[in-house]
């Protein structure tokens, strides 16, 4: 596909080649405005794909809940470590 040349930093993550990853990360916008904009865009993409539809399924909300459960497990891991059954794995 011979598209017109796009700057590396503006490509989508899936189109970035492995060698360009460093340049890509360096070119992203890390100002507070940029961070908030990226959060907003991520939210919009998820919302428009799974929730803002005529007949949504359980997936939209369920994935959010599962993500929350996993995240909270990770945050509590240092505390849960003490319930391990064996000392050496």
């Amino acid at each position: 596909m011979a598209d017109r040349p796009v700057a590396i930093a503006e490509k989508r993550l899936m189109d970035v080649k492995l060698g360009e990853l460093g340049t890509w990360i360096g070119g992203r916008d890390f100002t507070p405005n940029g961070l908030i904009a990226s959060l907003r865009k991520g939210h919009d993409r998820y919302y428009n794909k799974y929730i803002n539809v005529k007949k949504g399924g359980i997936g939209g909300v369920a994935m959010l809940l599962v993500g929350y459960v996993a995240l909270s497990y990770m945050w509590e891991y240092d505390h849960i470590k003490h319930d391990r059954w064996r000392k050496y794995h």
Partner: protein
Amino acid sequence: MLSRLVFVSANALKGSGHFGPGLVQASRSLQTSSQSLAPVPPLPEKGGKTRHGIIPEELFQLLYPKTGVTGPYMLGTGLLVYMLSKEIYVINHETFVAASIGAVLIYGIKKFGPDVAAFADKLNEEKVSKAQEVKDLAMTNLTQAIEDEKKEQWRVEGRSMLFDAKRNNVAMILETNYRERLHMVTNEVKRRLDYQIALQDLHRRMEQEHMVNWVEKSVIGSITPQQEKQSIAKCITDLKALAKTAQATA
């Protein structure tokens, strides 16, 4: 299906700034990329597909060329066994809690899912139909207004004919007035002239009569008594002669 309820409630929250600007911004980004925004594209029918409710279908599509259908399941099993064996996931009392809650949730969703979905769909339908009604009403009103406007324009065209008729009326009234006055003038003039003629006639008659009277008076005054006797005697002899001739013929 729960997301349908979320959507219904999210629409209710749209007044608060949380979702609203996001949606507006999403639509604005649509505007910059495609040609125009109106009419707003309809919502997609179904959301992104998920397998077992929590894993997006994209993962399965990603792994299908390399590992076939069972690839992601193998991945899941391997991950699970790894986490259990290394005790990255620790089995404690919370595991049982999670398991029971999960069982109840799954049973509830499987059993009541379709009903809740139908209910949420019905709510959506009602909202959409209400909006559609308003739109249809507005459309009929506007088309009616267009019809009325066209009729008014047609009427305006006829107004020039109205003015012509009125102008004709006024001209006729003026003409009538003019002719009336003309008649009046003629009559007045004729009256005055007739008076003058009558006056002259009277003059002539009076002069005639006066002259006749005067001649008669002078003639009668000039007859002397002797002449009167002579004329009476002559009249008698004439009468006798006439009587004789009359007797002779009879």
